[in-house]
């Protein structure tokens, strides 16, 4: 069968056909061909902002062409296998094997098997040691690089931190090496001198060198693509994305992104206005999402909205404000949006526990925020909570129920009719780079007990519905989040036994993982239990800027239920400003 024939048999052929509007010139003269590989389906991968940025950054380089490849769905993988075709890039249908470099963007732990799935479909050996110079250089990146160890044996190198500058330096280096006839070994030796590059074969647990994450120093001046690729079919986040700033001033103690992306660096309001205008003109999307880790905390949000609002309205473009904090929710933000549903994340049910996790929001602020929303005509609220947080008791869980009840009462003080309150409860996963990186995860039995307790109690509240995360997925995610190199064989074994697309409930089979762990003699408790405070953790050679002493101090404050004020209230000395000027420090 030809590629065209198998496309016609595929479930959604547009996932593999390419030809998106705003695709850069693929025929320009080049001597480095890079392929960004997303170990997830087109619809998910194309929603990723990092992909959009790095793709256009590379294609803007002279002599470099960057293409894309997404994990094929199972039906298409079977068709490829049947016809003996290797996995190829979307743009020029070049087999992945024939690229100079492959860059896997690993968004989170449940995509690890996806990496192997893509490699196998492309005919590339899993382990870096089994790939000679005839294979591409395989790089890893994305948020998972904060603890690269479980994947360390598969990748030739990792890009740790923000990739815009690292990826340009790497392709430039490979270009030079190629011209001088230098091979992969020499390239890797030189590559590890680039900021943010980790070469696992040369930097091993026995001989450690610290790797500093890469940070963009002048974020406002940093290139941002406005002629973004237009997906061929409907994708998960089907809208233009405008990134307001990096970092987050709030310091919620469970949140990896909040620490990993420090220091805080804002784009200026005027820069954003120009970018927004161009995004509308160059993409044609009917929605622009003003994205960041906490959009309500962007210092000039009101000015920005009054700048972009009229432009958006004229082009009939909807402005979306994701990740608003309850305390920053102002009624004017909601005025022009469709009054469908609002999402807030109090994360914990009692003030005590919110103080433990440093979620700087009070019950009063929650009531004020929701009161404004109800005045605006919202009748549906989504609330996100986390279960299994350090020091959590049943009282905290019942606090969630009490909060939902009080929200319901608040609604009926203002309106008649029905209110929908959706409570979504995930399970706490201790993540590297946070003050909770040493904490234990509760057992699956305990997760079940707490979930059912909440379920039973919330059933008694009219208008409330309850969703909770899968326990097995949460456990596996925790194992990998704090994993080490011993887990690489586990990923391979589980993959060989049929584990793939673990982030999709219908494809996730925990029994495969348990069998594989038993076969390899891996004790999951080593990864799930509390970690020693006095020994370096497997990922601590990665310097994310935030110091170990700061994380320990935050951990102690957590146990005392003491809040740490946000960076906007004064510098707390996390250490990230060593890497780049922090805009919150500068403001003072």
């Amino acid at each position, binding site marked *: 069968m030809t590629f065209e024939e198998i*496309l016609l048999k595929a479930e959604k052929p547009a996932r*593999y*056909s390419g*030809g998106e509007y705003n*695709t850069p010139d693929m025929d320009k003269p080049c001597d480095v061909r890079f392929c960004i590989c997303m170990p997830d389906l087109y619809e998910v991968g194309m929603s990723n902002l990092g992909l959009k940025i790095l793709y256009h950054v590379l294609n803007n380089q002279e002599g470099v062409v960057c293409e894309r490849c997404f994990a094929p769905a199972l039906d298409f993988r079977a068709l490829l296998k049947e016809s003996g075709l290797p996995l190829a890039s979307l743009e020029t249908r070049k087999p992945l094997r024939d690229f100079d470099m492959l860059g896997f963007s690993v968004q989170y732990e449940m995509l690890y098997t996806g990496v192997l799935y893509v490699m196998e479909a492309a005919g590339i050996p899993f382990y870096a040691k089994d790939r000679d110079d005839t294979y591409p250089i395989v790089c890893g990146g994305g948020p998972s690089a904060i603890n690269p160890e479980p994947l360390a044996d598969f990748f030739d190198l990792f890009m740790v931190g923000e990739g815009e500058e690292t990826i340009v330096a790497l392709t430039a280096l490979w270009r030079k090496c190629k011209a001088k006839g230098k091979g992969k070994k020499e390239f890797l030796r030189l590559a590890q001198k680039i900021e943010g590059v980790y070469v696992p074969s040369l930097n091993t647990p026995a001989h450690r060198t610290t790797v500093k994450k890469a940070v963009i120093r002048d974020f406002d001046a940093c290139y941002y693509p406005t002629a973004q690729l237009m997906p*061929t079919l409907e994708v998960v986040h089907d809208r233009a994305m405008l990134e307001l700033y990096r970092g987050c001033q709030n310091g919620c103690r469970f949140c990896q992104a909040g620490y990993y992306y420090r220091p805080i660096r804002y784009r200026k309001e005027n820069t954003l206005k120009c970018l927004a205008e161009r995004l509308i003109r160059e993409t*044609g*999307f009917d929605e622009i999402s003003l994205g960041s880790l906490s959009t309500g905390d962007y210092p000039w949000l009101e000015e920005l909205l009054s700048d972009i609002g009229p432009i958006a309205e004229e082009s*009939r473009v909807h402005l979306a404000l994701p990740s608003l904090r309850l305390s920053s929710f102002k009624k004017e933000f909601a005025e022009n949006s469709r009054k469908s549903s609002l999402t807030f994340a109090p994360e914990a049910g009692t003030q005590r526990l919110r103080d433990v996790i440093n979620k700087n929001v009070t019950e009063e602020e929650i009531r004020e925020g929701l009161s404004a929303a109800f005045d605006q005509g919202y009748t549906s609220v989504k609330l996100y909570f986390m279960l299994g947080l350090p020091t959590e008791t049943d009282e905290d869980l019942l606090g969630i129920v009490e909060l939902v009840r009080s929200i319901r009462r608040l609604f009926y003080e203002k309106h008649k009719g029905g209110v929908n309150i959706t409570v979504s409860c995930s399970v706490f996963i201790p993540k590297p780079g946070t003050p909770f990186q040493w904490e234990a995860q509760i057992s699956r039995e305990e997760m079940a007990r707490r979930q059912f307790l909440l379920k039973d109690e919330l059933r008694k509240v009219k208008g409330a519905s309850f969703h909770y995360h899968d326990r097995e997925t949460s456990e596996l995610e925790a194992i990998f989040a704090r994993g080490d190199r011993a887990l690489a064989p586990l990923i391979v074994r589980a993959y060989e036994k049929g584990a793939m697309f673990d982030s999709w409930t219908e494809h996730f089979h925990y029994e495969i993982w348990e069998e594989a762990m038993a076969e390899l003699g891996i004790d999951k408790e080593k990864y799930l239990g509390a970690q020693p405070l006095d020994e370096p953790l497997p990922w601590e050679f990665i310097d994310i800027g935030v110091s170990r002493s700061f994380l320990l101090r935050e951990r102690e404050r957590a146990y005392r239920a003491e809040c740490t004020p946000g960076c906007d209230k004064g510098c707390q000395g996390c250490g990230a400003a060593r890497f780049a000027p922090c805009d919150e420090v500068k403001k003072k």
Partner: protein
Amino acid sequence: MILVLKHYKRGPMIYVSHIDLLRHFTRTFRRAGFKIDFSNGFNPHMLVNLGTPLPIGISSSSEYLTVSTDTPKEEFLERYNAVAPQGLEGIAVFAPTRNPNVAGRTVAADYSVKHLGAEQVRREVEGVVNLLSLMMPVTKKGETAMKEVASLVNGIRVYPNSINLCLAAGNTTLRPDKFALFLAERYGFEAQVTDTWKYEQYVRGENGALLEMDEYLTSLEEPPTDA
């Protein structure tokens, strides 16, 4: 004002489903800066109507889309093509004085399918058009049933490299790729359905005969005034 855009669907766009296609147009119109009318209601949407759905995998140089806009007809095509995605290029623009109901009035379309060896059985293949009954297996949702298709075949011509088929399209549709494969199996030749083109679309004319869509749309335009 209503404008009808005649456009291609070719290249990578042939794999885009009918439902996703609409998004490509609304985004292109926004890039072009067109003033398009919007519906009223909770979720206002651009007033754009696509023509008859084209099965996935088939190329076409005869697709029609209706749009309600203030943008003058004279400017529309050039501005559209400047920002159109590869494979959805515009061919012509019509300005009918009333809604032409393209999707509802379409009754047939011409297709061309590449083949190997059909000229050896040309007479039999072309003779199919005269059959009073023709049962073809049709698979829907995994179940195959025999369907009477004789009345859906308007014409067949075999050329050295291609077979031209005029088949029912619109409310009742006979898929050209499936029909070509059926003929190929029945008469022993090879149909290369990955290379199927739709090149004409018809409405039913006043005399009952097939009328080309372009002629129909032109007939709805205001007659040119003599200067």
